[in-house]
């Protein structure tokens, strides 16, 4: 088995601040994802990466940057935190298969902007 580690678990930022969230996986998976989860809105894809140094925009990429310097790590930057923003950011990874592909998630980073 493997594990996805997200740091920090809790992040409190100030309006306008640039904030970075980190994710590490030891599954040796090729593809990694960043999702945002808001109450009542489900999970929305921010960025994903199919291999080292690759970046693909999701539906919610505006206001975010991402970086995949190594296969095992994928970081997300909130370029300018919005006041009163509260959300959970979830990192995930997978190894594509023809069938029964499974995506695995980290425990999340909870962001609060004051």
């Amino acid at each position: 088995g493997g594990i996805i580690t997200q740091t920090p678990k809790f992040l409190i930022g100030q309006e306008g601040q640039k904030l970075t969230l980190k994710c590490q996986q030891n599954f040796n998976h090729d593809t990694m994802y960043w999702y945002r989860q808001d109450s009542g809105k489900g999970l929305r894809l921010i960025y994903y990466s199919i291999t080292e140094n690759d970046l693909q925009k999701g539906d919610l990429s505006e206001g975010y940057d991402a970086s995949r310097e190594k296969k095992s790590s994928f970081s997300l930057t909130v370029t300018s935190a919005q006041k009163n923003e509260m959300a959970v950011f979830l990192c995930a990874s997978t190894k594509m298969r023809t069938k029964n592909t499974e995506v695995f998630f980290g425990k999340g980073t909870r962001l609060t902007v004051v």
Partner: protein
Amino acid sequence: GQQVQQSPASLVLQEGENAELQCNFSSTATQLQWFYQSPGGSLVSLLSNPSGTKHTGRLTSTTVTKERRSSLHISSSQTTDSGTYLCAIGASGGNYKPTFGKGTSLVVHP
């Protein structure tokens, strides 16, 4: 883009009752996965079932790909089953981007 509708939005049961959760999707999916999320917790993969019927423990998933629907049956529910159940679908390929439904919130009372 792809859309995923889950029903019911919420479900309340007494311990021991069975639960039937539905997932309908707007376009052909060659990958489908069910997840469980405990209150305040992260997503845990329950099973991957893009077609046919699959069992694991008290869970049974049936996916009818041509009809773009999947169900998750939980037998003999327990209070520890309480939480949110999410369905995610996508198409196989290098750019695999799972699309999630909003989930079914399940509460099981003792």
